[in-house]
């Protein structure tokens, strides 16, 4: 089994000592995120997220299926994640690691169980036809904070995705081609965003140090971690801290508040990027857009 090379003792001491002086190896502030880059593909629902050297792709696809018998009004939504050797040689194909489980579990809790996607809006004909939305997350490069990056990727991709228009007439349903009718965005109720804190030993004041957006090196050395998922309205969607170093409740609360602040920034950033992309897409037929506006005004 290929293993991630262990961090050497010298490296470990260096990183930890530097942290005690509030310095990080890449020169960031303790609580600063790396720059998030969002690159949209040609298709709707395709997003490439870069967070420093971490790179995650998310792609949304939709198909029509039968709903579950116990939930006839609800569409289906699945998130699939797989860590492959492309992200890091330590990951193997077909053998999900613990990190793999953690990521899929927390994404599930953050996005699916918090009802970010309105499942009832995906219903076409009750108990017969619903949309099944699938988010595939691919990890291209691993340099820490895979979870945060993939959450941003999934949320952005969902917001970017357009669902073909469906008309129902009696028994028949028609799925209109994208060329034929302008596809509609999904109904997303809120944007949950994961923020992972990495805990390290105590600083000079005897308080646990916590970092945001850790790199792979920092992740390997941390004493514990906690993921908080918040939306911009200040609602916590889930918290997951299992094990690791025990932390004072006071610090947990500080983390939660900090997460809420950070999420507002990320939320705005995603919104801006989406608008920019929309503008870029519509540049070619701006006249058509104006026409549409004019019509509405009348």
């Amino acid at each position: 089994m290929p293993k991630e090379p262990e961090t050497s003792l010298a490296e470990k001491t260096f990183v930890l000592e530097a942290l005690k002086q509030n310095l990080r190896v890449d020169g960031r502030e303790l609580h600063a995120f790396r720059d998030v880059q969002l690159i949209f593909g040609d298709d709707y629902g395709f997003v490439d997220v870069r967070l420093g050297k971490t790179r995650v792709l998310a792609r949304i696809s939709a198909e029509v299926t039968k709903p579950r018998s116990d939930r006839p009004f609800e569409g289906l939504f699945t998130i699939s994640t797989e860590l492959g050797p492309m992200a890091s040689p330590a990951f193997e194909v077909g053998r999900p690691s613990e990190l793999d489980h953690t990521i899929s579990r927390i994404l599930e809790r953050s996005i699916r169980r918090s009802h970010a996607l309105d499942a009832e809006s995906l219903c076409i004909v009750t108990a017969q036809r619903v949309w099944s939305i699938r988010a595939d997350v691919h990890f291209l490069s691993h340099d820490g904070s895979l979870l945060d990056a993939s959450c941003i990727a999934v949320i952005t991709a969902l917001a970017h995705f357009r669902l073909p228009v469906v008309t129902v007439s009696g028994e028949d349903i028609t799925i209109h081609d994208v060329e034929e009718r302008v596809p509609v965005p999904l109904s997303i109720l809120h944007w949950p965003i994961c923020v992972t804190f990495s805990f390290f030993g105590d600083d000079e004041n005897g308080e646990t140090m916590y970092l945001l957006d850790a790199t792979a090196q920092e992740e390997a050395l941390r004493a514990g971690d906690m993921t908080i998922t918040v939306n911009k309205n200040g609602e916590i969607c889930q918290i997951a801290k299992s094990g690791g170093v025990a932390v004072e409740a006071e610090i947990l609360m500080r983390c939660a508040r900090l997460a809420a602040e950070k999420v507002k920034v990320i939320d705005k950033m995603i919104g801006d990027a989406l608008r920019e992309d929309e503008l870029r897409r519509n540049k070619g037929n701006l006249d058509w857009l104006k026409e549409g506006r004019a019509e509405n005004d009348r």
Partner: protein
Amino acid sequence: MEGLRNDGRRWNELRRIHCQLSTSGSSADGSAYVEQGFTKVLCTVTGPAEPGSRQRGRSDGATVVCEVYFAAFSGTDRIKRGRNDKKVQELQTAVQKTFASVILTHLLARSEIAISLHVLSQDGGTLAACINATTLALIDAGIPMADYVCACTAGQPAIGLGGGSGGGDDDEPDPYLDVNYLEESDIPSLTVATVGGGEKVAVVSMESRVRIERLEAMLAVGISGCARVREIMDKEVRRYGKEKLDGTGE
């Protein structure tokens, strides 16, 4: 007259906790049984022992593995949960990670500690009961730990119980301590586990949406619950220890 919850408790009342050490006799190195209301969990610990496979041995400390079994009869309906069930795996990782950091693993290099948990009856707070049972079983097995890990749940009701002192103008109702199954499926709740008597939090797990302002109150109530759970467990450990000592002394 203060308002009561659906099972007749006040907002800050724990359910009855019954715990027992060394329940499985000689078949395991340590075992414990915990009842929190109608949630009943049995834990057995084997180890420190030689790891089952070479790969698992670590030269700088012990490995902790955990297996959780849900009895088919543990819920209201008979459900068989396989080993790959998401809920089972989630519990497994949570318990495993919690105790991997609390057990003084560096004292037990190249060995393995296997925790096996049986959920016999579920009525809310399964994770909390699992953590408490594991703590007791590890104590029974004599495995060195930093301190007790005690867990408890807290929920945030939408409407207060009313009638309480100063409850009239109270638009933020008191959080419920130690939620049962009905409350758990109804209102947002979190599980919190503390290490030792202070406010050091090892585990927080919440799966429902809640306003950030309410988190503090829920955490505070949960942590106070942990402290009470700790008292109860400590009392039982001391009682059991005394009984053991007296028994061999004669």
